[in-house]
């Protein structure tokens, strides 16, 4: 039986979809069977981020309404055999699906996949209710901004009220230099308020924009820091103990690194 994870945040634009795509791709790259579920009906994005937009024939609303079989709506990824996407509908809205239908859908997916990852829409209304209905574990994404942390706190409260306890936190788009200068909330500041376990931190990285626009996943990019951060998160989900990257060290300059390599430090 598969494990069902929901990726949520409350606030929009903090990286839920990017995180869903990268964790899904990472798990699939590790050889697992993964289904990604886009529940952002009316504002679907996950298909675009994965570069699968042009393959969509049926969507989640078609499946729950019985217009097609689940298997017909699932789109297989370009790179990984084990990665599948169930896209959201673009012409409907969040009321086109209800939590009971989601439970049925997830029960069916669990038979076939090792991991089902649900991309939750922003907000706390029905879209959120649908997304968390069948989830067993939650991943909360935030950025080091007061508003995003506030919304994450609200979401954690709502998850707990729905019996999704001990969510894991991903802090996205960290800029170590700004944190050092005291201009950005630090990881400690955020954990102090949210008091949940940290699943990982992702540094701000241009490669995210580049790969996302190409419909690729940064987790496959061996040279970028954000790719490494996502690979670490995937390993932690798989149960490995991986230390959180020290962004200060990561940021060291070229000459410092060179000196260290040739043994001057």
């Amino acid at each position, binding site marked *: 039986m598969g494990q069902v994870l929901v990726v949520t945040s409350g606030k929009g634009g903090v990286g839920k979809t990017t995180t869903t795509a990268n964790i899904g791709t990472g798990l699939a790259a590790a050889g697992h069977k993964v289904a990604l579920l886009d529940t952002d009906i009316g504002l679907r994005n996950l298909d675009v981020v994965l570069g699968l937009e042009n393959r969509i024939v049926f969507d989640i609303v078609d499946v729950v309404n019985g217009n097609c079989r689940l298997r017909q709506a699932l789109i297989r990824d370009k790179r990984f055999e084990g990665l599948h996407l169930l896209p959201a509908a673009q012409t409907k809205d969040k009321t086109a699906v209800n939590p009971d239908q989601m439970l049925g859908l997830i029960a069916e997916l669990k038979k076939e996949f090792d991991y089902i990852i649900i991309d939750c829409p922003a907000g706390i209304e029905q879209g959120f209710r649908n997304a968390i209905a069948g989830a067993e574990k939650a991943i909360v994404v935030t950025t080091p901004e007061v508003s995003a942390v*506030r*919304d994450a*706190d*609200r979401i*954690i*409260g*709502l998850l*707990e009220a729905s019996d999704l306890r001990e969510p894991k936190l991903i802090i996205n788009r960290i800029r170590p230099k700004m944190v050092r200068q005291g201009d950005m909330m630090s990881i400690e500041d955020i954990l*102090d*308020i949210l*008091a949940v376990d940290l699943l990982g931190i992702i540094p701000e990285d241009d490669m995210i924009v580049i790969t996302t626009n190409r419909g690729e996943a940064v987790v496959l990019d061996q040279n970028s820091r954000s790719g490494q951060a996502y690979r670490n998160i995937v390993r932690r989900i798989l149960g490995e103990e991986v230390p959180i990257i020290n962004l200060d060290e990561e940021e060291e300059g070229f000459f410092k690194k060179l000196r260290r390599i040739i043994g001057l430090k």
Partner: protein
Amino acid sequence: MIASANSYSISGFGHDLPAKLEDLIDENTILVQRTLRSGQSLHYNGNVVILGDVNPGAEVAATGSIIIMGSLRGVVHAGAGGDVNAIVMAFHLQPTQLRIADHITRPPDNGAIDPDYPEMAQIKGGVVTIESFQYAGERQGKVT
């Protein structure tokens, strides 16, 4: 009455603690063993003791006093029924807004004061004042 921001004063360490904690003992007290997160609220007819934090965006209102064994970063209203003797105490008192009876206060806008010791808010001489809180035994140098 809305007190101005400067009525939210912070005094020095460990002197002048007029509110007798015994006066606050009331059988109508609840113990809340959780953190209140943004969007969550607690309204209670009596005193409230919270073993956890009150995060920004959360609110607690009680007709009696409010004691927070953690960080207070949200909105609290003690003496919500008009009791001017109600107090607010927190291990880390950094409220968004603090109300006692019909007094409404907020931290000063330039407030960089962030003490790491427990503090207590109460109405003294018609204004809400904040003082460091020390247990009586500790003040007398006893090990408790």
